[in-house]
């Protein structure tokens, strides 16, 4: 089985978000970049397929040279090879078109992407990719087994989960649950040394439209101070929620 894990280079979850150039750009100043968490769960599941079922695992990223440390981290975790499509990820449609080229040329059986990146949250790349390639698709995937050509996936639905039977070739929109948080791997020294020698192919982008564009950003409005209620006077909270906030 040949697996492609699509990884996005995103600000660490603890990052404070600021904007620059008249609020038209995300301010990367002082921001630590990591593998998108939803993608990392998928990458870790791919490592399981590699170790238990002999799968080959490649990773792909759409981004400029600045994303290479994140790509090398994925190699240090254990991916065999990496591909960087050398262009800025303009929007989800554009990124999916770039990845579709990689999948077509690489003959992958299973493509694992995160359900969304935690920065721009578009949530469309896996669905567009699957449709462009006419591959099966399961989104918000929290469990995945593959036996031969058959796959069983569980997806999160509102208020529960759904088990799905499908087959390869398959695209997954992954998230936590594909593996547990405690299964995530921190690259060790040997992994980091080996990653330096692994192939990182840089390919040029194909022409593709980007139908959406973020023109301006803003931060949420600052919140007023909290209204404290005495622990011995809980009925006051009930009254505030009813009369003031009008939520009960």
């Amino acid at each position: 089985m040949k697996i492609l894990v699509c990884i996005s280079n995103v600000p660490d979850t603890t990052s404070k978000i600021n904007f620059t150039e008249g609020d038209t750009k995300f301010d990367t100043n002082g921001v630590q970049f990591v593998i998108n968490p939803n993608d990392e769960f998928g990458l870790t599941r791919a490592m399981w397929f590699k170790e238990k079922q002999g799968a080959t695992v490649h990773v792909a990223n759409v981004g400029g040279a600045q994303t290479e440390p994140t790509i090398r981290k994925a190699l240090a975790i254990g991916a065999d090879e990496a591909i960087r499509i050398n262009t800025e990820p303009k929007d989800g449609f554009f990124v999916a078109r770039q990845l579709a080229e990689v999948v077509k040329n690489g003959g992958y059986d299973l493509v694992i992407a995160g359900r969304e990146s935690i920065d721009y949250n578009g949530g469309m790349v896996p669905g567009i990719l699957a449709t462009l390639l006419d591959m099966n698709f399961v989104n918000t995937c929290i469990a995945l087994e593959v036996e031969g050509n058959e796959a069983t996936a569980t997806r999160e639905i509102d208020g529960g989960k759904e088990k799905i039977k499908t087959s390869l070739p398959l695209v997954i929109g992954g998230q936590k649950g594909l593996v547990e948080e405690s299964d995530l791997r921190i690259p060790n020294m040997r992994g980091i040394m080996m990653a330096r020698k692994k192939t990182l192919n840089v390919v040029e982008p194909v022409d593709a439209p980007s139908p959406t564009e973020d023109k301006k950003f803003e931060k949420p409005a600052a919140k007023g101070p909290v209204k404290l209620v005495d622990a011995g006077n809980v009925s006051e909270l009930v009254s505030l929620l009813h009369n003031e906030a009008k939520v009960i």
Partner: protein
Amino acid sequence: MSVLVYTETDKGKFKKNALEVASYASEIATQIGTSVTAISINATDNASLGAYGVEKVLNVSDSKLDTFNAKAYANCIAQAAEAEGAKVIVVSSSADSKFLSGILAAKLNAGYVSNVVAAPESTTPFVVKRTAFSNKGFAHTEVSSEIKIIGLSNNAFGIIENSKTAAVEDFSASVNDSDFGTKSIEVDKVIGKATIADADIVVSAGRGLKGPENWGMVEELADILGAATACSKPVSDLGWRPHGEHVGQTGKPVASNLYIAIGISGAIQHLAGVSSSKTKVVINNDPEAPFFKAADYGIVGDAFEVVPELIEKLKEFKAQNA
């Protein structure tokens, strides 16, 4: 040229988010001077959408579509969009709608904007406000494709009555066997309980509760309020509660009217995930907990004393206001 809205059902009845997206589609239709057509699948109460500004409902009746299938549903919506010549398609932010939207975008060569929180700022060019950076910011996004798919955030626009008469038509969408490359074999869903996605109130608890055996009072509080239960990331990582309850940046976003956080300190990732909730209440014994800076109301106190007391007071309140 109408605005097309996909109105989701549960056992044939329109979901709350269907009424909200219909209301939103009606606002867009007013802005661009057209009418709203809804596409529904195996719905039984189609005419009821008229109350939210829908003038025409295309209902697909097909037993093959009794269980949600993203590709087949996306195909039905795409065919309805074509039949109507729709240039704007509105969908919700439910798990199902998010599942099918990417497929639909690829089929129609459409720009898709998810997590939209307000009516378009302008329609030429078409600009909408959406959340970004996992609720730590907003983006004003321009959609330049001919067909535009707008995914509305839960509880962002509200349900707005706009009395019209909806003409209901049977719509025979062609459904192909090739759409069923994925087959649902088992659905495990909590019945009769509010879900985090559509609950008006969410009651959430964190590590401050010390162990999974102490969740009884959280569930009781949720029951009284008709609320969904949720938890912080450490609690789901520890296996005290199922992953489906994890709210925050890498879990589910919460956009309820009321969010009650019990024993949750308020890490930046958690606060981002719940920031769209309209009223936030925190109960924590640590007055320095960061959540107090993000909350509207707070009680500094021991959850094991405050929560049972709150349950009692709410019971009294409910009895008086029943």
